[in-house]
């Protein structure tokens, strides 16, 4: 393969995530991550040619388009900088945008950075209602919670699962997160604890749903020359793919649809492209770690099935048998605890990518899974309108 086509992760940083961060402003948070990733890569600001800013809706924090607020804090003045926004998929899209800027040969290295302040407003549910159509949908109590409630009832009906089956996903995620120093929610909980948590929108209870997290994250990607100079053991970005689908939920669930909402068709379409680029033909054999974007329990089985780790409708059965456990499982699914435990929306997809890349680099610390050669990360945005996935490998794979 051409050296110019190799893109590698050279450094990463993420803060601890929590509901509020009263000690910093948004721009200061972004700066902590930018400086942290540069330090991790052993770089100075001059080693970075361009910046991709990972920033989802800014209603939550009440400062419109806060990428502008951050330019000086992240050493951006004088450099090309672009903001990426695909809702919850933003962080994954930002990594892929940076990948493309390096792969195209335009830049030697790109800093991906972002921060999130979701809890700055107590009116987050009202903000989320605004993402729905003003004439036909906004009169209903639609939010991400309630629309995933709609999705989950359909998935459970199609494959015959119970709320307890879903609850095990949250139990595993919280247990895995005990090894993650950055995680927002962590701890040993039981299926009974999940079942006893407050009902939000049937069948989703509070523990089936991610928290609102504040914090920041950053990643430096570069070409092979930069990798040789700055990183002895980089993670190579070997596969990138994304898909979008119609805004209309009701267009994705009828017999004539071509975008089945329940079975998350776009995830499967993106994964097949991504795997082909990365040379993954048998994910269960070749991928040791997944870091799925899973802000709701149902998102984990859906992605395991659509990304080829098991047959449609079987992931929750295998969950019960421990297939997705960090220790003793067939593949370590979200060793970080994933988005169920930590959801700083604007950078959640970036954190998924960082957690996958650092596993490949052998730098995942207390979360490290042994002998990781390939790891996959993903991100989901809108009401599952945006999907992207990325494969990180310990060796470059040409495509």
């Amino acid at each position, binding site marked *: 393969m051409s050296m110019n086509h190799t893109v590698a992760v050279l450094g990463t940083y993420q803060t601890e995530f929590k509901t509020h961060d*009263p*000690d910093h402003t948004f721009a200061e948070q972004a700066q902590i991550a930018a400086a942290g990733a540069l330090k991790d890569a052993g770089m100075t600001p001059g080693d970075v040619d361009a910046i991709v800013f990972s920033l989802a809706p800014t209603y939550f924090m*009440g400062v419109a388009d806060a990428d502008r607020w951050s330019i000086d804090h992240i050493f951006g003045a004088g450099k090309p900088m672009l903001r990426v926004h695909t809702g919850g998929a933003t962080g994954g899209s930002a990594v892929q945008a940076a990948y493309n800027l390096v792969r195209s040969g335009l830049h030697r290295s790109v800093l991906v950075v972002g921060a999130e302040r979701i809890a700055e407003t107590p009116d987050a*549910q*009202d903000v989320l*209602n605004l993402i729905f*159509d*003003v*004439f*036909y*949908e906004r*009169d*209903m*109590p*639609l*939010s991400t*919670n*309630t629309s995933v*409630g*709609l*999705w*989950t*009832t*359909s998935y459970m*009906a*199609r494959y015959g699962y119970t709320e307890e089956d879903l609850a095990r996903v949250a139990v595993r995620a919280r247990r895995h997160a005990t090894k993650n120093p950055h995680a927002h929610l962590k701890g040993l909980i039981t299926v009974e604890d999940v079942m006893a948590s*407050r*009902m*939000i*929108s*049937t*069948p*989703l209870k509070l523990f089936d749903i991610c928290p609102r997290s504040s914090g920041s994250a950053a990643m430096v990607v570069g070409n092979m020359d930069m990798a040789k100079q700055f990183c002895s053991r980089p993670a190579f970005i070997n596969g990138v793919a994304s898909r979008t689908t*119609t805004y*209309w*939920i*009701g*267009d994705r*669930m*009828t*017999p*004539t*649809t*071509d975008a089945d*909402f*329940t079975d998350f068709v776009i995830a499967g379409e993106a994964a097949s492209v991504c795997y082909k680029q990365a040379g993954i033909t048998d994910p269960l054999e070749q991928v040791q770690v997944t870091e799925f974007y899973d802000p709701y329990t149902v998102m984990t089985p859906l992605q395991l099935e659509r990304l080829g780790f098991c047959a449609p409708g079987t992931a929750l059965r295998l969950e019960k048998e421990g297939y997705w456990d960090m220790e003793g499982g067939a593949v370590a699914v979200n060793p970080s605890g994933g988005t169920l435990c930590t959801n700083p929306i604007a950078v959640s997809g970036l954190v998924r990518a960082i957690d996958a890349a650092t596993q490949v680099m052998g730098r995942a610390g207390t979360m490290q899974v042994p002998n990781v050669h390939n790891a996959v990360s993903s991100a989901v945005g809108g009401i599952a309108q945006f999907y992207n996935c990325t494969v990180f490998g310990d060796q470059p794979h040409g495509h």
Partner: protein
Amino acid sequence: MSERNTEPGGVINEVVTLRYDYSLGEVAGKFMEGLKQGKILATSCSKSGLTYLPPRAYCERSFEPCDGWVEAAFEGVIEASTIVVRGFQGKRNPPVAIAYVKLDGIDSAIGNYVDGLDLSNLDAAQKRIAPGKRVKVKFGATREGRITDFSFVCAD
């Protein structure tokens, strides 16, 4: 507004009020006028053969303008449903049931409230509105040209 807490680690409170005038357009306008007359109007595309509800000006499959209007039947099948237990301000008081329903003869599903449901037992209520169950359209007594002029009720 409360007194400003300017200590390190404090917060500054602001309330932002914004107003909007949303342009309804031709298609949504015709749909809303239809609701006032007790009709649910969908658009159709002769090239793809698909009918859209909510109505669309443009067919996303054939990439041609939708060139017809049809009236949806007042009965259909639930494709997805949930009971919203934790509500939020400005909407109906929870718990409320909502569902996306494919009305007979229409290719897409449209969402609305499901009324007339006993919500004292959530499991039982959720089974009543499970995907696959049939519902009927029920118009309210007063119609003002908004989506909540009608709702769904269980058909059996």
